[in-house]
């Protein structure tokens, strides 16, 4: 195991590949969509782009991901995948334009066709649909591109994205995928489509660097331990940004932009930023040394006040200890490509939000 893997970071060469793809879910990941009541759901098709509300910090994050990729001489791709019908596509495209988001593709679920053909189960079933679309998009997309996936805790994004990553890595075979999807009672047509896509994969590689799950519903983060360290449950896009900064996908310029959006749009304070960061450290998704760097960046941007002297000293000592520990220990830290126990995942996650 390399030192970078041992310390929880993806292998350096993974980031240095020629292309990088960022795949985004839309509702509850990019947009603050309200569909908890029938009234809210009925309103959605009639909304214009200007009525749609994004989650604080997310446009700045996508813009920064693109800019930083280009700065690393990587070709960035941004794709959106939604389970919403294409009828709301115009409003979504308007919204993305208003937010200044450049994207390379956007996929909607053709619910009208499902309705016309009487595919009632397909209307509600997202797992097979999303997995199929992800694999199809991968087949058509840039070869050898590394990927970062963004979803939320409302439906089955953690399971879908983990399966997708393991299929691409060759850890889930067509047969194993088929069995899993049958256990999950996915519609037969969708299973066949996914299985065909898995069989058609010509090569396997550790493609997915990270999976970020926006805890929009405030699902307890402990519930995601079963998905391993590749999946990072994040309460906000500042936490996501800090993690991406640690793995080298964002630079120092990006973090103040995301943090400022949270301050301006959601009334955040320096305390909130600092607490968010510390939460990520305590949950094991950010190293103390990275935390210290992020705080320094925020202080330079005037977004965080210096902590009390003794607290700062303690944090520095802990960070130094952590660096030494990482140097001496060969096995410390989580690995990035964990072997997931899908039987357990199915027991704990099957049917969530479907």
């Amino acid at each position, binding site marked *: 195991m390399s030192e970078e893997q041992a310390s929880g970071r993806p292998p350096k060469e993974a980031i240095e590949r020629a292309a990088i793809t960022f795949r985004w879910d839309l509702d509850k990941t990019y947009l603050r969509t309200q569909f908890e009541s029938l009234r809210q759901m009925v309103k959605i098709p009639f909304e214009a782009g200007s009525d749609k509300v994004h989650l604080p910090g997310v446009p700045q994050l996508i813009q920064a991901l693109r800019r930083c990729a280009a700065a690393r001489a990587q070709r960035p791709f941004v794709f959106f995948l939604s389970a919403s019908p294409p009828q709301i596509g115009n409003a979504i495209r308007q919204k993305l334009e208003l937010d200044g988001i450049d994207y390379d593709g956007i996929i909607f679920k053709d619910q009208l066709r499902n309705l016309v053909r009487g595919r009632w189960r397909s209307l509600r079933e997202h797992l097979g649909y999303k997995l199929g679309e992800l694999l199809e998009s991968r087949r058509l997309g840039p070869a050898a591109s590394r990927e970062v996936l963004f979803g939320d805790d409302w439906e089955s994004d953690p399971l879908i994205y983990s399966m997708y990553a393991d299929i691409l890595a060759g850890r889930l075979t067509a047969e194993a995928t088929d069995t899993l999807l049958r256990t999950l009672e996915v519609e037969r047509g969708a299973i066949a489509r996914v299985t065909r896509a898995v069989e058609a994969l010509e090569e396997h590689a550790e493609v997915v660097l990270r999976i970020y799950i926006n805890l929009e519903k*405030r699902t307890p983060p402990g519930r995601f*331990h079963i998905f391993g360290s590749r999946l990072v449950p994040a309460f906000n896009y500042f936490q996501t940004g800090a993690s991406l900064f640690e793995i080298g996908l964002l630079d120092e310029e990006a973090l103040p932009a995301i943090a400022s959006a949270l301050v301006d749009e959601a009334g955040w304070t320096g305390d909130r930023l600092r*607490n968010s960061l510390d*939460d990520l450290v305590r949950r094991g998704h950010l190293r103390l040394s990275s935390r210290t760097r992020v705080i320094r960046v925020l202080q330079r941007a005037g977004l965080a006040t210096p902590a*009390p002297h003794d607290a700062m000293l303690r944090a520095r000592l802990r960070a130094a200890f952590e660096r030494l520990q990482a140097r001496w220990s060969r096995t410390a830290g989580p690995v990035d490509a964990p072997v997931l126990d899908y039987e357990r995942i199915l027991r704990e996650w099957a049917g969530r939000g479907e």
Partner: protein
Amino acid sequence: MPRIAVDAMGGDFAPEEIVRGVAQASLESDIQMVLVGAADKIQALLDAGPYNPELISVRHCSSAIGMAEDPREAMRAKRDASITVAARMVASGEADAMVSAGNTGACVLAAAKNFKLIRGVKKAALASVFPRQTDYPGQDMFGLLLDVGATIRCDAIELTQFAVMGSAYARRISKVASPRVGLLNMGSEESKGGDVLVEAHRRMKSLPALNFVGNIEGNDVATGKADVIIAEGLLGNVVLKLIEGIGEVAATVATQAAQDNWRWRIGMAMLSTGISRMRDLADFRTYGGAPILGFESLCIKAHGRSTAPAVSNAIKVAAKAVRDRISPEIAETLAQIR
């Protein structure tokens, strides 16, 4: 927004219920909270439920004082106990107030060791809330009794200061413009109770800032005749424990009777809604906790048996007390009296 240091390791159900209470408060308010205690245990508990990380920070410390430990001995032996660290944070200005459901003696000692007494205050007092009958519309269903154990014996000046402090607290927290203050005594006549109580009565009566209603006898404690009841620590503690004990005995007797006799069982079943409503009204969890008054800094002592809702409410009480400037108000009132 106030920042409240919460002793995560103190209480019969700590750290589980304390951490859950903080998590609950983080979803219901915008109060900044610092959980003081074993960081790994705290994070494991946070991980298990919903919370808002933006409002919660953790200060690690390696030891805690148990509920049954001798406070003095434990404070000496465990210099970085969670309750002491929380008090130090308040004293240094890192937090605006603290909440603890832990060992009461240790809580009082931690405050005494780290907080400054308000200028002119001779002794601090530990207050407690208790359920009682209401006597007028808008009256709080909880009365305030102080002192319940920070002192043993007091002189007349100290008791008068307790009255001023309790009145200021009740005015802000119970939203009663002019809380009724009573002096716990063995008779309603001014001459009863010995020299100290007679002198205390005279002093309280002479203060226009106090709505003093005179002496309160034991049978009036729970009637709502006074919103704030003043006693020296020994007596206050006996009364408080008596109230709690009677409640527990009544519940046990009724349960036993219902088990032994079918008529009682039917009767209890018929009264169950009313009993449950009474229990809800008198539930200490709705109040959260009561303060140690007399210090420049604020400490809210939650009940030792506090579960998450009580802890959450205690944090809200602490934040409200900070926002309403309870301690400065007490200082100003005492300065006027002087």
